[in-house]
């Protein structure tokens, strides 16, 4: 009997072993399926601006990619995300605020699924990376160091650059600006403001001590009234001013630097590869500035402030506003 029991136990053990093996195999197959699933692109809506970044992402990534569209309707999210999750995606690349926020919510209990966001203006406002380790992204603002470097290319006389900002909205940008200023050997003159109405006073306080001004895309600084005022003052005070967006340069600010939108797809592909290969975690990658940039230069303003940039410097601009 004991032998039988022993025999039964042996069979049970063998069966248990086989079952465990099968379970391991199945779980292995499951994770392989998850890892082997497509990379899914989720668009917030049918914005034409997304088409080139998506095409570039697809071409540069070299892995199967499927594209889904939220069509601007957050109510579509549950059905769409169910469909996406059924594919066991290897990574989500989200474009725009709605898609990125939906992906954040839907991966709250799926820490193994990386989410890479891009083209989200003021991403900090949505708390996209707060409380989750699976989210990384590309900032919608150009790195301040790139703006300083272009200021220096236009005018070697740049030594001190002013920046006016709101601490709660642009604290991180100003930290990056301090770091970049150190690398490039320039001094940063900072003024923090709480309300848009405080900008003029902050500017006047430092204007005599600076050669240039970094105009941040900070909602407290960046009002129509403030930009119009700054544009006139920068010209009057012969300051090298740099802002963000083509319109700012078109309106008369000396130069502006924007992210190169189609290139966001190429950068996202490189970041996605780094995470998918297991070389870096999403949290370690964090939120990177856009590396591809477009420089807009207003030569009429340059002329008015007595600046005569070299032909080589002008040719580096993606677009020049010169009245022609």
């Amino acid at each position, binding site marked *: 009997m004991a032998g039988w029991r022993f025999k039964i136990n042996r069979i049970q053990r063998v069966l248990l072993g086989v079952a465990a093996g099968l379970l391991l195999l199945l779980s292995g197959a499951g994770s392989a399926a998850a890892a082997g699933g497509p990379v899914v692109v989720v668009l917030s809506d049918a914005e034409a601006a997304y088409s080139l970044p998506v095409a570039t992402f697809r071409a540069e990534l070299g892995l199967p990619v499927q594209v889904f569209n939220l069509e601007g309707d957050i109510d579509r999210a549950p059905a769409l995300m169910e469909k996406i999750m059924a594919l066991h995606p290897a990574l989500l690349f989200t474009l725009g605020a709605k898609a990125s926020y939906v992906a954040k919510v839907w991966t709250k209990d799926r820490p193994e699924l990386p989410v890479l966001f891009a083209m989200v203006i003021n991403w900090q406002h949505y708390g996209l990376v707060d409380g989750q380790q699976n989210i990384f992204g590309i900032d919608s603002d150009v790195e301040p160091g790139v703006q300083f470097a272009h200021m220096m290319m236009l005018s070697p006389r740049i030594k001190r650059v002013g920046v006016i900002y709101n601490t709660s909205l642009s604290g991180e940008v100003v930290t990056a600006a301090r770091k970049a200023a150190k690398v490039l050997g320039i001094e940063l003159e900072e003024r923090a403001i709480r309300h848009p109405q405080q900008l003029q006073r902050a500017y006047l306080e430092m204007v005599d001590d600076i050669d240039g001004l970094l105009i941040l895309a900070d909602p407290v600084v960046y009002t129509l009234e403030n930009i119009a005022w700054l544009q006139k003052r920068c010209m009057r005070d012969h300051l090298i001013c740099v802002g963000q967006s083509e319109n700012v340069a078109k309106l008369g600010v000396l130069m502006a630097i924007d992210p190169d939108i189609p*290139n966001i797809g190429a950068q996202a592909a490189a970041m996605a590869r780094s995470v998918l290969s297991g070389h870096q975690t999403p949290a370690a990658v964090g939120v990177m500035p856009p590396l591809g940039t477009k420089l807009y230069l207003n030569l009429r303003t340059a002329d008015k402030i007595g600046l005569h940039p*070299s032909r080589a410097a002008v040719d580096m601009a993606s677009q020049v506003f010169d009245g022609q």
Partner: protein
Amino acid sequence: MTGILARFRNLTTACLVAVLVVLVGGAFPGRAAAVDIYYFSPDSPQRNLGGLKREMERFFGQADFAANFQPFAHYIDFDQTVREKHPPFLFLPAWYYRLYGEKLGLRPLLTPLRGGSSSYRKVLLVRKGEGIAMNTLANLSMAMTTMGPDDRRTLNSILFAAHGADANKLNIVTVPKDADALLALALGHVDLALVGKQSMELIGSINPKILQAVEPMAESAPIPGPIFCYVPSRVNMEVVEQMKQLLQRQQHGLNVLEILQIDGWLAVQN
């Protein structure tokens, strides 16, 4: 009733406009349709593509040659448009010609010279003091302008294989211009940058501070420069010859060499 009359009036106006267009077109029978010239040169220091288009069209206009000069900033955009529109003339990187020249029926016409040479070199840069060596490149990120879909193979042949390294182990971030790659490196966003030697020297001459933060690690073998091609099935040889002479002709006023930032052309023998 009023609606029908209004529609009729609109139709009449449209017909009159069409007739006028035909008549005006007929009055200038010698005027040929503008010839498309597509331009994609990611390693050129000239990034002001709007200005480039304006100046090139003015140059062709002065020679009474109707041309639509279309520069492209991004590879995807260029490649898609070339395949859709089949332009008769193209100025493109040598790697594009190597990959797709035969399939697209491209025939080289001229190759530009810079510094007297039809090839150029790229320099592999690192941040100063990072302690990166050619045998520790695995998994590092490298920013560079596009070298096409098989960039890793190209990179191995022009640089990495000679140093016992493998570009397949790098994480490549494509950027639109050399200045972006250089700044991404200097500001600590990538580990390496591969930039054109000429661009590096140019950027260094206008902002020496940037070059002080980086140091060269290796230099590539000569890379063939861009090629000006034509498509025989899309244009007759008379126009090809006209284009060739026009580009090679030194003329007063607008100088095509200056516009394209080159110092001469080398005719390609087919």
